[in-house]
C-alpha cells in the first residue's frame, strides 16, 4: 500500500502536524511519500524540518486548489492520500479526489488497516457520534493530526512552482481580518450566548490583561458580537491553550471540538445542567458578569 502525506503549510504548526501525520502513515504502510505546499512568498533555507525527500510545491494560496490538485494528480499514483486538515487542505482534498476518482472524507480523526481493509473514523451528527467507515478503493482524507516534535532533515534541492489562478472568479481583492493569535494563545477567554453584547469589552479586557485571546461560539459570531475570525469550533478555529475560561457557553459539541485540546478548561454558566460542564475540568454555576468583573478587579488590583 502506498500512502502520500500532504500538507498545505500556513505556518510552522502545520509543519509539525505534517510530521505527526507522516509518523502515523509510517505505522500503516511501508511506502510513504511526503508532499508540502507553501505560499509563493515563502523563502527557504537549504534544510527544513520535514521528512527526507519531501516534495515541495509553491503556489499562490489565494489561488484555486483545483489547479494544484490537477498538477499533483498528474505525477502521483497513490492508494491513500492523507492531508493535514485546514481550510485549504479540505479544498485540495475535494478537488484532488474528484479528479482522481478517489473517495474523499474530510476532517477525519483516525485511520487503521485491519486484514488489508482500510477503516477511517470521523465525527458525524454535529460531532455527537464517531462514525467508522470501511473504505474500498482509493482514498483521500483530511486528518485532524497531532503535532510531532520529531526532528527531520529535508534538503531542498528543487521547488515546483504551480500557477494556480482562480477558476470562476476574477478581479480578486483580499481584506485581511484583524490578526489574532487564537490558535497559538496560552490563555483563552471564550464567550457564548450567556454573554451580553454590551459587556463584551469586559471579556476583551480580561483576555488582554491575561495575555490571552478572546474567541466565541458560532451563535455569538453569527450574532455579530465578535468577529467571524474568532469563531471557535469545528467550523472555526481549534485552540490548544494551556487554560481556557469559558463564559456562558452551553457546550454544543461543535464548539467543544474547538477547545478539547486545551490543558485546563474552566466553565462558568448559570445553568447547572449545561453540557459544557461535562467537557470541563472545573465548573462554576453562577452569573458570568459577576465573575468577569471580579476577575478583572483581582487582576488589576
Amino acid at each position, binding site marked *: 500500500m502506498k500512502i502520500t502525506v500532504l500538507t498545505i503549510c500556513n505556518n510552522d504548526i502545520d509543519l509539525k502536524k505534517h510530521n505527526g501525520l507522516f509518523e502515523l502513515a509510517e505505522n500503516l504502510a511501508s511506502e510513504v511519500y511526503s508532499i508540502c505546499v507553501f505560499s509563493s512568498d515563502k523563502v527557504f533555507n537549504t534544510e527544513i524540518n520535514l521528512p527526507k525527500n519531501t516534495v515541495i510545491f509553491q503556489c499562490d494560496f*489565494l489561488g484555486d486548489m483545483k489547479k494544484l490538485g490537477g498538477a499533483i494528480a498528474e505525477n502521483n499514483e497513490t492508494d491513500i492520500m492523507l492531508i493535514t486538515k485546514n481550510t485549504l487542505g479540505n479544498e485540495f482534498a475535494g478537488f484532488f479526489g*474528484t479528479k482522481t476518482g478517489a*473517495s474523499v*472524507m474530510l476532517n477525519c480523526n483516525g485511520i487503521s488497516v485491519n486484514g488489508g481493509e482500510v477503516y477511517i473514523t470521523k465525527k458525524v451528527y454535529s460531532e455527537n457520534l464517531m462514525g467508522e467507515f470501511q473504505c474500498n478503493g482509493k482514498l483521500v482524507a483530511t486528518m485532524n493530526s497531532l503535532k510531532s516534535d520529531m526532528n527531520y532533515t529535508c534538503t531542498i534541492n528543487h521547488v515546483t512552482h504551480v500557477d494556480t489562478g482562480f477558476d470562476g472568479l476574477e478581479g*480578486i481583492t*483580499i481584506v485581511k481580518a484583524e490578526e489574532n493569535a487564537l490558535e497559538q494563545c496560552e490563555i483563552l477567554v471564550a464567550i457564548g450566548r450567556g454573554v451580553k453584547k454590551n459587556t463584551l469589552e469586559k471579556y476583551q479586557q480580561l483576555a488582554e490583561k491575561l495575555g490571552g485571546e478572546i474567541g466565541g461560539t*458560532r451563535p455569538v459570531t453569527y450574532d455579530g458580537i465578535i468577529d467571524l475570525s474568532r469563531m471557535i469550533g469545528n467550523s472555526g478555529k481549534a485552540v490548544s491553550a494551556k487554560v481556557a475560561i469559558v463564559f456562558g457557553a452551553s457546550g454544543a459539541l461543535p464548539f467543544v471540538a474547538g477547545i478539547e485540546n486545551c490543558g485546563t478548561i*474552566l466553565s462558568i454558566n448559570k445553568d447547572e445542567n449545561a453540557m459544557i460542564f461535562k467537557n470541563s475540568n472545573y465548573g462554576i454555576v453562577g452569573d458570568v458578569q459577576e*465573575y468577569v468583573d471580579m476577575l478583572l478587579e483581582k*487582576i488589576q488590583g
Partner: protein
Amino acid sequence: MKVLVCFKIVKDMDYVIDRDWEIANSSEFELSYVKDVISCFDESALENALRLKDSARLENVQCDITALTIGDGNYDNFVKNLFAVGISEVVQVKGCGELDFQPELVSEIIAKTSVEKFDLILLGNEDSTSNCGITGFHLANKLNVPYILSANEITYNNGELKLTKNIDDGLMFGKITGDCVVSFSNSNNPYLRFSTLRDRLKVSSKTATVVEFTDLNLSNIENNLKLVSLKRENKDLNCEMLVGNLQENVQFIMDNILNEVGK
C-alpha cells in the same frame, strides 16, 4: 438570472438530549421527537439567494430562485415559508431512501433534477448530519463548471455578480465569471428571513413540485465509503464543581488555574 438553491432538512442536533446519544451504538437511534430544521449552511445559502434577488431587483434584473430538497418527509411548513419569503419554485425529490454519507449520489440527483439550466447553484458547505462537505465538488465536476467554496455573501451590483468568500485570514472579494456552483459556510447572513402571516396566506395554494427518484433513471453509483458503526465517545472530564462563593471561587481560579500559566 436563474438560481438553484439546494437545502437539506435535518434534525436540530442541539435539541437531542445527552441520554439519546449514549444509546446510539448503532445507526438505529431515535431522533423522531427532535424538530426538523434546514441544515445551517443551507439556510445561509437560501438567505443569500434571497439577498441576491433583492439586489438584482434594484437594477431591474429578474432573478428566479428554485429551491431543491431531497427526502420523503412532510416538508409543507418549510415549503410554504420558502414561497412566502420569495422563492419561485420548490422541488422535492422523493423515494431516494437513506442518503446520509452518500455525497456522490446526492450530487447525481441534483445534477439530474436540475436539467433546466441554472446560472448559479448554491448550497451549504456541508450538512449537520453526515458533515461530508463533498457534494459541491462532485456536483461541479459532473456539471463541468467551477466550484467556489466557503462563500460568505453574494450580491448583484452594477450588472455583476459579486461574491465574498471566507479565507483563512480574512475575506476574498471577486466577480463571478460564469455558471458555477457556490457553497456557503460561515456567512454574514446566516439565518433565513421570517415570513409574515400575510406573505404565507398569499402563497397558501402553492405546493412543491414532487420528483420521484425512480423517474430520474440514475446509473448505479457505487459508494466506496461504507458506514460500519456509530459510537458515542464518552469524554466526561469529571468536572470538579466549585461550590464556594464568588470571592472564594475567583481566588481559586487565580491560585490554581491562572497560576499554572504564571498569571
